[in-house]
């Protein structure tokens, strides 16, 4: 009987402590309100609330939709000078993330902008005091792969390294946020208006072309003092569509007509459209270069296939030659796509720029009189052969 009483008392005590703890959780130190719950392809939203007086308020906004982000670390270590060659990869990056800070933090954001491509997200967060409030992407699962030369040759991402601890994970999540969203003004905004009594308002602009779905909003002054998580919905309606792998919404007519124009021009100039289409897509829409390269490539499969069929009908393919070189190309294209994710968008653009200059030189060479003269002769032979071949095919079909 005594034992039963004891357990009962302990039970009640435990319950009491739990419920008080939960009550503390339920009454956040910061109140938070949104003026809207629905946006249509971006728009303005006003976040207001009250925080403990005198403390800076940081507001995090992030999308529930997830995208892929990756970063290849090949910068030499500051102490040992060794290059790590590690690929950081996550599938859980929010499709949108931005941290809003008090208005007086603007100079720090401008400083990051002025640093150009080398700006550091973690440094700016520290300078503005926002690192204590940075939390939404801090916990995402990040894989690390040790890349090696041999691995690259056989086209593997490399050995998976053991998971990072929480603080390491947080640090590399900041680098991945930067790798994904690139510019300081996309992930940081000094838009929070503070009053001395602790009330705050922020006019937040959600840009066009973002992911649809639920967006979370939370305010924080430091690690422990935070608001509840509020949310709003961003809707994307036709003709705008959301490309889930690219993490971008766009008007579907844009890429359609661009591809149409480029592919017509491509056929006329005798070069595939990919040369022009890839860079144009990248400069018009905020798409990852990996997705652009990987998605443009298969669009020509069909036209190549039908071209081969047409040439083979008139016996205009030397199979042994085509397959021999084709097998070498097969090996090359096994490696290439892996390298795409090891380079940044800027490196992609830089190399692509030089490829286009070489291509322009080749094109120019094809307009020089000497080449045209030679080409004329060969075109005449080609025509003659084609005629013979078609006739041969015809007589064969009739006999």
């Amino acid at each position, binding site marked *: 009987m005594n034992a039963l009483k004891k357990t009962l008392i302990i039970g009640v005590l435990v319950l009491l402590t739990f419920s008080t703890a939960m009550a503390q959780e339920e009454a956040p130190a910061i109140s938070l309100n949104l003026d809207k719950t629905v946006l249509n392809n971006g728009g303005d939203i006003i976040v207001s609330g009250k925080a403990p007086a005198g403390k800076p308020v940081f507001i995090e906004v992030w999308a529930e939709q997830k995208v892929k982000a990756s970063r290849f670390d090949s910068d030499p270590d500051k102490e040992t000078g060794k290059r790590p060659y590690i690929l950081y990869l996550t599938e859980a990056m929010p499709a949108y993330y931005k941290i809003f800070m008090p208005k007086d933090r603007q100079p720090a954001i401008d400083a990051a902008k002025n640093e150009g491509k080398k700006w550091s997200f973690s440094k700016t967060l520290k300078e503005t005091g926002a690192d204590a409030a940075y939390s939404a992407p801090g916990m995402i699962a990040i894989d690390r792969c040790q890349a090696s030369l041999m691995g690259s040759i056989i086209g593997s991402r490399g050995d998976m390294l053991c998971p990072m601890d929480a603080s390491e994970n947080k640090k590399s999540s900041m680098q991945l946020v930067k790798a994904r969203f690139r510019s300081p003004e996309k992930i940081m905004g000094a838009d929070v208006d503070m009053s001395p009594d602790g009330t705050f308002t922020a006019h937040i602009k959600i840009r066009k072309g973002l992911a649809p779905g639920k967006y979370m909003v939370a305010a924080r002054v430091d690690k422990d003092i935070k608001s509840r998580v509020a949310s709003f919905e961003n809707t994307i309606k036709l003709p705008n569509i959301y*490309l*889930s*792998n690219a993490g971008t919404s766009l008007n579907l007519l844009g*890429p359609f007509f661009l*591809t*149409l124009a*480029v*592919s*017509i021009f*491509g*056929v*006329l100039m*005798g*070069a*595939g459209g*990919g*040369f*022009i289409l890839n860079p144009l897509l990248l400069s018009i829409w905020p798409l990852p270069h990996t997705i*652009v*390269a*990987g*998605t443009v*490539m298969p*669009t020509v499969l*069909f036209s*190549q296939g039908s*071209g*081969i069929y047409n*040439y083979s009908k008139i016996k205009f*393919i*030397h199979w042994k*030659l*085509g*397959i*021999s*070189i*084709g097998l*070498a*190309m097969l090996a090359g*294209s*096994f*490696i*290439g796509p892996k390298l*795409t*994710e090891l380079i940044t968008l800027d490196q992609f*653009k830089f190399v*692509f*720029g030089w*490829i*286009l*200059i070489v291509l322009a030189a*080749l*094109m120019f060479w*094809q*307009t020089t009189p000497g080449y*045209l003269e030679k080409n004329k002769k*060969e075109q005449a032979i*080609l025509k003659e*052969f084609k005629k*013979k071949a078609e006739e041969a095919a015809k007589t064969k079909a009739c006999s």
Partner: protein
Amino acid sequence: MIVNFWGQEFKINIVIGCIGGFLIAIISSMFGFGGGPFMVPLMTVALGLPMYIVVGSSLLAIFFNTLMGTMRHFQFGNFDLLFFLIMFPAAILGGYIAPKIAQRVSPTTVKRVAVAGLLILALNLLGVY
């Protein structure tokens, strides 16, 4: 390797062709374009083959490249189906419209325009302007 084509014989160094094809394939699959404009000069200039052999056979070689490149990009998750479904019909439609326009324009003029266009695009990518 000896290439026999419509009664004509050409002696080529297939090793050069394969090394060239291999390198072009790496670059072209990495950056997502067909390697045609680079394969044709490789086969005509480096291998010394006439244009009429090269047009069909280079297409066959590039097809291997596109097929493997596509599979690998897909494997790494660098493929967006919806994006593909927007561009694919446009590419096919372009392939039907282009030959109808082709008879009315001179290929040399198109190429000259292309040279200018490619240079503008290249300078943009290199961040010159």
